[in-house]
């Protein structure tokens, strides 16, 4: 093992390799409820070449490699289940290109959401990227790799993985590949019209290679922003409400949430519609069209738009949203996990009812909600459970709740998102066997030594 350590030091320098107990401890866990693992090394590469050499070294020695971005996935996807190297990508944080005319950027894999957001605001204020509701240290690459979504997912093309215009990846066998237009010309504008190989690295939980660069779509940034909050008390009405609002194509971001606290929100369902515009006149028109889309509900007094004070709007319009981070700390003790499920819009009432039942049965605090992805093609529905890590009984209750939520999501026709190993197995058990076989063949082909994040997307333990 000393040889491997020495070789890692030669590749990245002594300052960027660690096997110190406290660091192995920290890199062995995340904020969620999954049991910790224990890496053998933590390594922070600075270049694609260093990543390539590390992966080759790992392959030669049969050492697992777990790529890690912000480490905020919450479901243990960066917990090294079988030891090995945690490959912390945060040093690869350069923003390499912003193409103002073709609206894309190219970043290194460790570039954080916050860094790109600040960079664009300062240097290219007419452009923005879709920001997930994660802390700003979440990385661009980590988020696209897990099919993340964000504040432009409804209006600008779906999951963040769908906004990827190109990838640079290091294969488990050490080859460096460019995928998309950048494979053929020195431009990162599109994955089409070539065979779409980027899909081999998106949604695979780091089991097929290491993403080192990402091309991402950028979108116009508008000067005026407003938010409308539509309040209902009939969960069965929510899918139609969302469908009507989405169909106006006037909302930039559309999210839905329910929460038992504060008490004046308990039992109600809130749908937030973010609207952006270039001029006050355009804003008024967009607001009017959104409101008119749900006029029958207003006429029947069954639902309505809640007048919002300015300070509340400021909070609601922030990207990323702070409210979920604040909710994450509600139990204190540093524990938070949520089950995200990608599901059709019509599954929202069932998911809501299932969530209420699960929270009640397990005696846990909850928050539930959804973000519309694409033009209402799907939602990312979440059950969020904060917990006190020092309270083992509470930890266990949340584990049960998460498992039940995963099962409920599948039963409702949804698919658990970025789910932990147990959830992955639940999915694989219901997946078309031919699809499972194809996944296994592709993985075996790409990673013949089985070094990439082992334990994930595996049928058998």
């Amino acid at each position, binding site marked *: 093992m000393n040889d491997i350590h020495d070789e890692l030091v030669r590749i990245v320098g002594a300052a960027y390799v660690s096997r110190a107990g406290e660091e192995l401890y920290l890199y062995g866990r995340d904020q969620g409820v999954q049991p910790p693992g224990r890496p053998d090394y933590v390594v922070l590469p600075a270049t694609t070449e260093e990543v390539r050499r590390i992966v080759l070294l790992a392959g030669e020695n049969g050492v697992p490699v777990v790529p890690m971005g912000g480490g905020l996935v919450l479901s243990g996807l960066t917990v090294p289940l079988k030891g090995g190297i945690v490959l912390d990508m945060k040093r690869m944080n350069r923003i390499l290109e912003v193409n103002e005319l073709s609206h894309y950027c190219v970043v290194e894999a460790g570039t954080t959401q916050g860094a790109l957001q600040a960079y664009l605001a300062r240097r290219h204020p007419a452009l923005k990227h879709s920001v997930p509701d994660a802390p700003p240290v979440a990385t661009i690459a980590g988020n696209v790799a897990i099919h993340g979504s964000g504040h432009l997912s409804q209006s600008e093309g779906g999951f963040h993985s769908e906004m990827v215009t190109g990838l640079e990846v290091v294969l488990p066998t050490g080859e460096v590949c460019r995928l998309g237009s950048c494979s053929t010309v020195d431009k990162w504008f599109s994955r089409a019209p070539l065979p779409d190989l980027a899909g081999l690295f998106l949604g695979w939980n780091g089991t097929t290679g290491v993403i080192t660069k990402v091309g991402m779509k950028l979108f116009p940034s508008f000067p005026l922003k407003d938010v409308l909050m539509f*309040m209902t008390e009939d969960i069965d009405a929510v899918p139609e409400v969302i469908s009507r609002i989405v169909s106006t194509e006037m909302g930039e971001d559309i999210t839905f949430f329910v929460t038992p606290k504060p008490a*004046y929100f*308990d039992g109600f369902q809130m749908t937030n519609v973010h609207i952006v515009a270039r001029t006050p006149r355009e804003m008024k028109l967009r607001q009017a069209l959104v409101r008119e889309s749900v006029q029958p509900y207003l006429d029947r*007094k069954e639902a309505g*738009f809640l*007048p919002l*004070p300015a300070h509340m709007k400021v909070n609601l319009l922030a990207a990323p949203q702070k409210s979920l981070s604040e909710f994450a700390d509600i139990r204190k003790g540093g524990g938070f996990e949520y089950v995200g499920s990608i599901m059709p819009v019509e599954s929202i009432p069932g998911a809501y009812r299932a969530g209420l039942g699960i929270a009640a049965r397990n005696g846990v605090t909850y928050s539930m909600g959804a973000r519309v992805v694409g033009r209402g093609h799907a939602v990312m529905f979440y059950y969020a459970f904060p917990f006190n890590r020092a309270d083992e009984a509470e930890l266990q209750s949340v584990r049960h709740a998460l498992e039940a939520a995963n099962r409920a999501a599948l039963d409702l026709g949804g698919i658990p998102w970025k789910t932990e190993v147990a959830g992955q197995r639940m999915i694989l058990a219901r997946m078309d066997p031919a699809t499972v076989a194809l996944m296994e063949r592709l993985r075996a082909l790409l990673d013949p030594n089985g070094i990439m994040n082992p334990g994930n997307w595996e049928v058998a333990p």
Partner: protein
Amino acid sequence: MTELRWNPDICAACETVDCLEKCQYVRYSPEQARGERDRLIRGEETAILTDCVTCYACEEYCPHHNHPFYLIVERQEELGIHPVPKPIEKSQVLMMGPKGRIVPEAVRTPVINLCYFPMMKGAIRGRLLGDASVIVGSDIFCNLMFLHFARNSTIRERLPQMIRNIMTHYLTPGGVDELVCYHDECYGTYTSWAPAFGIDVPFRPVHFFDFLNRRLEALAGQIKPLGLKAAYQRPCSNRLCPETDAWVDAIFEKIGVERTEREFDHGNALCCGGVMEAQQRFELAESNRERNIADMKASGATMAVFNCPFCFFTLAEKAAQAGLMPVMMSDLCHMALGD
């Protein structure tokens, strides 16, 4: 349960039907207005029950002080008419309900009631107000806002306890017998709504402007006249105590501010639009705001002065965009004292 002290015979004999004829938000012919009135008296469904924007103005317009607005609210509630969507109404009832978190505190005269606007505590400061005791919160909240929600019942249910809380936890132990009401809504509750519903008020309510006026008089030598022109946004609840509107002029005179002459002031004041938004009347709310701000601007004012925090929240941004500095009356007075 307390009943509205309203005399149907007075309404039936009314020749002018000013309550509806003067209303800025409905256009009824004299004949239609009489028909509306008659149906209101009989407790039947009628257009005004859904047309009403709940601006309170008919309470001021009625020459007989026969509480036409309170009657409209009674009828709306009896007939299950909801001016505001039901979920918003329910949520507001929960949000504004007493939390039972009252902390008894020693008070001394003067005691200023900040209603349920804890964010306004900063206004009670300086030479003008710094010596005042402040009470605020859900457990002393007048609840009059539920007039906008067709819920006299909520006010009936909560107000007696609020009054008991004020007395038991503050005024009685402090040996205080008067309460300065910062918000017109509270003053209107204690001087208009409570008597109309037969609820006893065991303290003397003092309008904030009355109090300010006296304080400014005492500090006259320290005032530096501001030399400004200001438009005043008269809030809906001032319709319950129209006699207090004159104090705005008295205060302005003392601090060297000219209340600009404009179309939408005094009896013709416009609603800030906040409640209209809750009622989902978005175009009306917007047009009200635009007309109101344009009128302030055209009057030559450089400031838009508010006493109602809700009006301030609703209109301040638009006023500022139009080049009018939005300011609360209390802050304007502090400015004149250099505090």
